[in-house]
């Protein structure tokens, strides 16, 4: 049972980002909702080595455009 602890950092907007656990590894192009806002993942990197079942991921996102929803 892998758990992906993801640090989401938002570009192109004044947003503090989010930290959330996911059951699957985020991928570039994924559309995500943080709170009530929609974003698309543009970069994914491993932040540090996994520990036990936990993987530590950094994902950069940008706001989703209206025509992408």
């Amino acid at each position, binding site marked *: 049972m892998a758990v992906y602890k993801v640090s989401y950092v938002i570009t192109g907007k004044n947003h503090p980002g989010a930290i*959330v656990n996911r059951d699957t590894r985020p991928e570039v192009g994924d559309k995500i909702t943080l709170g009530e806002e929609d974003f698309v993942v543009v970069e994914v990197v491993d932040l540090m080595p996994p520990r036990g079942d936990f993987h530590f991921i950094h994902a950069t996102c940008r706001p989703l455009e209206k025509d992408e929803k």
Partner: protein
Amino acid sequence: MTVIETLKKVELFEGLDKAELQKVAKLCKERRLKRGEAIAVQGEPGNEMFIITEGFVEVVRHVTGDEEAQVVVNLGSGQIVGEMALVDHGPRSATVKAVSDPTVVQAIKRDDFDGLCEQNNHIGYIVMHNMAADLSFRIRHRYLTGK
């Protein structure tokens, strides 16, 4: 999902066996929050920490001299919040409120948590180690946001 299944997905408890997770689960009390509802208020005393199991909370800080509060981070499923007051007994360092409806948390009281860690030093060591690792992750996140 049972409380134990939820706790297995929380980094704070990574390394605990099933019997130890059951002991932690007995301390948990579920709370369901509506959007805008606060579980911690900056400056006020706090004697609980919270594990977010559904939805999102925002962590908001009021800085002296600034009129507007600053959202520091949003935290979602699997994250802990309110643990600082549990460890240092200080006032809440930030206000934490639900931003999605519903937001569900598991609350653990300081006295219960301290009692369990004193009874079982292995649980205490693992949880304190993981709490430091979580703090480290949050600092890395903060550096990455450039704020």
